[in-house]
């Protein structure tokens, strides 16, 4: 499965790119995070404390247990600070 993965705010800075294409067999967001963490130090650093990371699958806020079957886009970002 080929996923478009996006990073925002300090997650983008730590990982070093705003988006990338990831080939993965991850079943859930949590699986994808685990896979990225083992890939390179910068991912391990960015995902070191998931309490301060939020996730959206196909532009809908969701949890780390969300399934990735059929998903095209996953985004990781800190808690939002709009308004």
């Amino acid at each position, binding site marked *: 499965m080929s996923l478009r993965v*996006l990073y*925002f*705010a*300090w997650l*983008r800075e730590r990982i070093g790119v705003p988006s990338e294409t990831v080939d993965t067999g991850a079943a859930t967001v949590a699986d994808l995070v685990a896979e990225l963490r083992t890939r390179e130090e910068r991912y391990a650093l960015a995902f070191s404390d998931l309490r301060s990371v939020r996730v*959206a699958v196909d*532009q*809908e*806020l969701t949890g780390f247990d969300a399934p990735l079957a059929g998903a095209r886009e996953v*985004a990781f*970002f*800190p*808690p*939002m*600070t*709009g*308004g």
Partner: protein
Amino acid sequence: MTVRVQRDDFDLGAELAALRAGRTDIGALVSFTGLVRDSAGGDAVSGLELEHYPGMTEQALAKIESEARDRWPLQACLIVHRWGRLLPGEQIMMVATASPHRQAAFEAAEFLMDFLKSRAPFWKREHGPAGAKWVDARNLDEAALARWTKPR
């Protein structure tokens, strides 16, 4: 469409005038405008950077706006949110709500703000003498959401 995400500034007075133009059924019009402050937590702020998630932002705002319309009898409802670099004193965003009665207009505006703060994909970075830092989400903002989940 009553949700706009844009880099450019907006004209608050013109937006409010447009909401009620030609109408005689509105009794109450409430607006909230968020502005860039020159300080935060005691530190000087020389500017603000607003990053957002194009595509998801518009969807999230439309969803919040639609939920407000479901909950209150609104005759008009507007959300305008900017992104990019802003200087102290500049307008960041606005919401406006129009209703026959004042309580509905006030409540809907507060509801929109509470959801915008924690559920719309915007991130703020403040620039100051010590460099730039990402603004932390406030527990207070998350808590403010809770009051809208009670059954009405």
